[in-house]
């Protein structure tokens, strides 16, 4: 990029931080969970290992998890910054980060079954650009692993099996069912993203984007905030616990959003993020870069 000659290097550093350095809000939530679980229980030992892993990864600058996931980028930019140039350099940065072992070669051609070796290919990385009226660039990245992606779910209400109707009660039953079906398979305690409504594709995408929210934030919509609190309480009463070993902490957070729907459709989408909610933000202001 002519305007920001170091852009590519900055994105490599952003990926390194995302892969090796878990955000503070997630660490604080895991520490609170460790205090809650009974000493010497399998649940407690899991959380002790998890927190030690966080320290080692940060110190040695090695990936928190070997599955470095789908790299999801959201970029907000002012008028006049070329998204085409940014896309080229983000892709180059992903390949460099793979070479440096911050990322595992994790992109497989679905037809030939060949690993591309550099994490590049159709859909990899996932890029989304949005223009805004601020004179700064905000690059958000999330690494979402396959184990937790596999236990995500989408419901079309009404759902006869669950006796879940087309209202917030139905939504609550559906989300709780998804968490119960996931058991420990998504590397819980999980961070749950929910979208009520939308079409199928937009709904799942919005649910996944909830993982960008800080775990301790408060939903500005009072009704959704109350739904999040109710779901959080009930999810933890399932008793699934860390890794599905049993315990008090089944979810670290539940975050919900809503999108308008057609009168004929009522989707509820659930995105499950493992305990390792890997995300980082990069800001470019006045030619300088900062990672948060």
């Amino acid at each position, binding site marked *: 990029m002519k305007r920001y000659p170091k852009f590519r290097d900055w994105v490599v550093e952003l990926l390194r931080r995302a892969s090796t350095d878990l955000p503070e809000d997630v660490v604080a939530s895991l520490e609170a969970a460790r205090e809650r679980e009974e000493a010497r229980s399998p649940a407690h030992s899991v959380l002790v290992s998890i927190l030690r892993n966080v320290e080692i990864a940060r110190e040695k600058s*090695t990936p928190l998890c070997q599955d470095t996931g789908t790299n999801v980028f959201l970029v907000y930019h002012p008028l006049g910054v070329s998204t085409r140039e940014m896309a080229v350099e983000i892709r180059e940065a992903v390949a460099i980060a793979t070479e440096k072992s911050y990322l595992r070669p994790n992109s497989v051609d679905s037809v030939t079954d060949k690993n591309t070796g550099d994490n590049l290919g159709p859909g990899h990385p996932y890029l989304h650009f949005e223009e805004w009226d601020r004179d700064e660039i905000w690059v958000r990245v999330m690494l979402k692993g396959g184990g937790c992606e596999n236990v995500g779910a989408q419901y079309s209400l009404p759902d006869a099996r669950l006796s879940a109707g087309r209202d917030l009660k139905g939504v609550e*039953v559906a989300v709780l069912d998804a968490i119960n079906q996931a058991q420990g398979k998504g*590397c819980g305690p999980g961070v749950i993203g929910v979208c009520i409504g939308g079409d199928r594709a937009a709904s799942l995408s919005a649910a996944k984007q909830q993982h960008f929210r800080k775990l301790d934030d408060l939903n500005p919509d009072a009704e959704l905030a109350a739904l999040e609190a109710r779901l959080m309480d009930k999810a933890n009463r*399932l008793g699934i616990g860390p890794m599905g070993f049993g315990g008090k902490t089944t979810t670290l957070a539940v975050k919900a959003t809503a999108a308008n729907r057609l009168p004929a459709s009522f989707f509820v989408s659930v995105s499950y993020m493992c305990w390792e909610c890997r995300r980082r933000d990069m800001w470019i202001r006045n030619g300088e870069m900062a990672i948060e």
Partner: protein
Amino acid sequence: MNKIELPVSAAEIAKLRVGDLVSISGVLVTARDAAHKYLVENYVRGPLPPEEKPLADKLYPLLKDGMIYHCGPVVSQDEKGKWHMVAAGPTTSTREEPYQGPVIEHFGVRGVIGKGGMGEKTLAACQKATAVYLHAVGGAASLLAAHIVEVLDVYKAEAFGLPEAFWVVRVDGFPAVVTMDSHGRSLHKDMLATSSAAFEKLADEIRRG
């Protein structure tokens, strides 16, 4: 904490019960999707193609009374060509469910380390052949890589790709929890039953509330 040294006897494995914390030391082998398919097609079903004989001579002694780790690591190679594990946590085990039972019985494997648990066929094989399923902490890849003290060999790296290859590694004090034992108990089965009962109660509360 139960200390396990590899190779391990059936008698030692039979002592383990669901919920036991263990620490494993010795030589084990990683294997995931491509490796399990290869083992079943060429060894369990056979006949073994003659060109696979040299690898068979290595794998049989490693797997007998040994352990398999479901893991696709991030690795690096130093200037002398030696491999190192950078990040090496467990991968989802259930994908190997069609293969695991036959592999345990055919090779005399005593333990399978992974995450997320496995199904009825593997549980039955654990009981029949005296083996256990051990759950490592999913996502704890840097911590677990630190317990892998040496990479001794790698097989099928070209054919399967680095994450899918057989990595022969020496581990020291590798931590895991027994979640399926050789007596027919599975924590995963029990947990699904308990949490599903809790779910039904909570769902009722929501519907009525």
